[in-house]
């Protein structure tokens, strides 16, 4: 068994002892181990197929008001000793920071269900190849080609510090992404994310992508402009990703770069979001990279700012307890939500389009980036299935469009929220999201496909 699936605590304890021998007043060890496999396919054949096993130990060494961090993949006796010496040397030459350096105290760590799957941990390259073949068969039947990846991984995380924190967990994850493309440039997308690989149906993902590609043939040209949109869950993930990262980090608020103000109305009353790593409907994890138990944090409650995520540093400065959103030290980026949920609404898929005189159904976005972070203005492209909606009906595909849109304005313009939700991969972690109908979306450019 590799360290991803086994116990890493003895290693962490050994490193804490070495830090103490080097004179640490406090210390924190994070051991991250992974066994990860990914089968990639293009033109309906496997073209890349990879496996890695890796272990890294991260040591945060505190010497009074000085902190040094070192990490290493060399975990034999000499390697660990060198790691402790390096972290100590880095700490000792730092200027003292203002105020004491306080590592988290031990606290309750929630029991989380459904974080690990035997089938995912044991998944073979043959199993992934079979999944690729099933998706490819759907593409063949539709006259398009399949492109994508099918991954399975086991990740072990252990955190231990001199204040008594001892936290250890093993999680698994599997993801299948499929884009189907045809000879005339038509494209469609499908994706599934799960803890348990057996809950992913490759044929279903392939069918979704192939069907969308076929419906995307011969797209019309639509001039840029402001249109109402219905966003599929794949596009809604992008909305939550950016809003979460730009606005709901305690460090972003501290530094004045967030739009967040307690109680500020930023979204339609239909919108409620929260971060909850304990929910088995997502990708559960019990604690963060500082060994603090994960808390459920309400971010937006019926349209208004409701809360922030904290790590130990931002919580200490705010005089409160971390919500369990710390990243590995040294972390200058601050805490971020990594397990966001959006509350479902009551609209069934057909109802989402109702009342749209002329608008767009957007499958997903491509290469989005913040143009003005504090106003959450983001630009990006539509991709892999953009459809014109007229009088509440999908009338055909259109070429992809560029948008430059405040995501805050978009949330404020939410008119309907879908009843069904999907678990999907996000830039940071995962999201559970429904479809959304938004009254106005600012498309600012067009492309040639």
């Amino acid at each position, binding site marked *: 068994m590799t360290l991803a699936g086994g116990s890493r605590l003895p290693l962490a304890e050994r490193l804490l002892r070495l830090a103490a021998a080097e004179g640490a007043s406090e210390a924190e060890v994070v051991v991250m181990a992974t066994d990860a496999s990914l089968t990639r396919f293009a033109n309906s054949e496997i073209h890349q197929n990879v496996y890695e096993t890796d272990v890294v130990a991260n040591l945060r060494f505190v010497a009074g008001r000085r902190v040094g961090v070192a990490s*290493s993949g060399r975990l034999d006796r000499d390697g660990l000793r060198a790691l402790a010496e390096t972290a100590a040397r880095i700490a000792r030459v730092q200027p003292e920071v203002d105020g004491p350096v306080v590592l988290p105290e031990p606290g309750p760590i929630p029991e989380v269900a459904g974080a690990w799957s035997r089938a995912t941990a044991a998944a073979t*390259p043959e199993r*992934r190849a079979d999944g690729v073949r099933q998706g490819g068969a759907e593409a063949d039947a539709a006259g398009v080609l399949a492109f*994508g*990846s099918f991954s399975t991984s086991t990740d072990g995380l252990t955190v231990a510090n001199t204040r008594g924190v001892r936290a250890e967990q093993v999680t698994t994850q599997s993801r299948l992404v499929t884009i189907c493309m045809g000879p005339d440039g038509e494209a469609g997308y499908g994706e599934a994310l799960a803890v348990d690989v057996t809950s992913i149906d490759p044929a279903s993902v392939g069918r979704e992508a192939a069907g969308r590609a076929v419906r995307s043939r011969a797209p019309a040209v639509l001039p840029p402009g402001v249109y109402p949109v219905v966003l599929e869950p794949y596009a809604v993930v992008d909305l939550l990703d950016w809003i979460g990262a730009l606005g709901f980090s305690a460090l972003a608020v501290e530094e004045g*770069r967030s739009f967040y103000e307690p109680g500020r109305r930023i979204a339609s009353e239909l919108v409620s979001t929260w971060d909850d790593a304990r929910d088995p409907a997502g990708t559960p994890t019990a604690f963060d990279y500082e060994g603090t138990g994960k808390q459920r944090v309400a971010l937006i409650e019926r349209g208004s700012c409701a809360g922030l995520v904290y790590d130990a540093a931002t919580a200490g400065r705010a005089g409160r307890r971390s919500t369990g959103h710390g990243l590995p030290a040294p972390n200058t980026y601050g805490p971020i939500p990594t397990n966001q949920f959006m509350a479902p609404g009551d609209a069934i898929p057909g109802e989402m389009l109702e009342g749209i005189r002329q608008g767009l159904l957007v499958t997903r976005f491509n290469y989005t980036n913040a143009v003005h972070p504090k106003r959450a203005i983001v630009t990006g492209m539509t*991709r892999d299935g953009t459809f014109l909606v007229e009088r509440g009906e999908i009338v055909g595909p259109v070429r992809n469009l560029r948008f430059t849109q405040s995501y805050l304005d978009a949330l404020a313009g939410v008119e309907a929220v879908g009843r069904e939700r999907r678990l999907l991969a996000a830039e940071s972690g995962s999201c559970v999201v429904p479809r959304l109908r938004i009254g106005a979306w600012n498309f600012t450019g067009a492309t*040639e*496909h």
Partner: protein
Amino acid sequence: MDHVTERALQVATMRGASHADVRTVRRMEERLSVRTGRVAAASRREDEGFGVRVLVDGAWGFASSCRLTTAEAERVAARAVRIARASARVQRRPVALDRQPAQHGRFQTPVAIDPFQVSLETKVGDLLEADAAMRAAADLAFTDSTYRADREWKTFCDSNGTDVEQEITHTGAAVEANAVDGDEHQRRSYPEPEGGMRAGGYENVRGLALATHAGQIAQEAVALLSAPQCPPGRRTIVLDPTQLYLQIHESCGHPAELDRVFGTEASYAGTSFLTTDRLAGGFRYGSELVDIVADATADGGLGTFGWDDEGVPAQSVPLVREGIFVGYLSSRETAPRIGRSSGGAMRADGWNHIPLIRMTNINLLPQPGMSLEEIIQDTDDGLYLVSNRSWSIDDRRLNFQFATEVAYEIRGGTLGRLLKNPTYTGITYEFWRSCDAVADARSYQMLGTPNCGKGEPSQGGHVGHACSGARFRDVQVGVGRW
């Protein structure tokens, strides 16, 4: 050849690999960050491991491990072969590699001052000094001063007899001033927001003179808070190298990657409008002033090396010559499909990833005639755009949109007032065809990014871009509602 490499090659070959290669990599990275006068991060990371790539029955397999033992070499090589056999179950076209002569030798980045031998006190002191200079010059919300040094030792051996060794060092530093007022947040950075990295040692950091430039960017960040919004319209724009390098990266470098053209990056990064028929047809990519090369031999570039991660020697490959699209970034697998030999552009992020076609140093060559200052003087009415703030481009690399940290108005050949939140957008080939001036060698400089994302699992790439600045006519600026 070390024992791990030797054993891995033996096992892979014995188990049926028609081609096998093994890379061992050890990396050391040092990061320092001073945030608003406080040391926010001081860290060093080391890791090492090896990766085995095999071709079996014309299909690829790859496995890697952080444990450098001969027993692990046997396990990992066997696993790579098993994975390749699984790949072969879903394959339509067997992989064929171009023929390359076996390579032997050693490459080392020229380093004048070893960054890992400079004391931490000195490096932290240099950042604290620059950070203090920013905060002394203006009332800022927060500052960020960063330093980074990466060193990679790697060996590459393959079943064809290649055995090469490289030691590559990249070092950089940057300062960033942030001013906030209400919902307005403005940032200025120096030398550019990607961290100022170059190939070489601490001499790069000394050459930047961070503290000398810190005051000006701090004052500009504050001035931008009350500057007028960049108005929409079609304008002449002059791109400073601190923006032009990313325009080259996104709209020339990525679409010239031949794996994208063949669809093998479609599921993540996308494809390319530079299809092979456009190579054969002499597609006009830009104006006659546009000469772009992929040069892995350029001094100081983040894409400079001795051999790529398939053991192909570093070379300079023309991509665009006098505006005509003439070449791709390519590999041993992709180049033969267009009747060429590998251009030596396969690069992997560490021991645990396969090599992918990556940019080397994608350079827009300077043109004799006008300096960058003279181009501005030659511009009656336009905008001078400096330092990238955001970027986005479609999945075929056609429709792009960039924002820069600042725009300076140009009136009658003179730089005028600042404008905030500038953006510009266009279609790649229309934009490059509108280029009517490229600055001469006086402002030609090597820039680059250490954060180029590609592949699944995601890999970060260090790529270089040398350029001197250029002018473009009739470009849409001021995008969106502000």
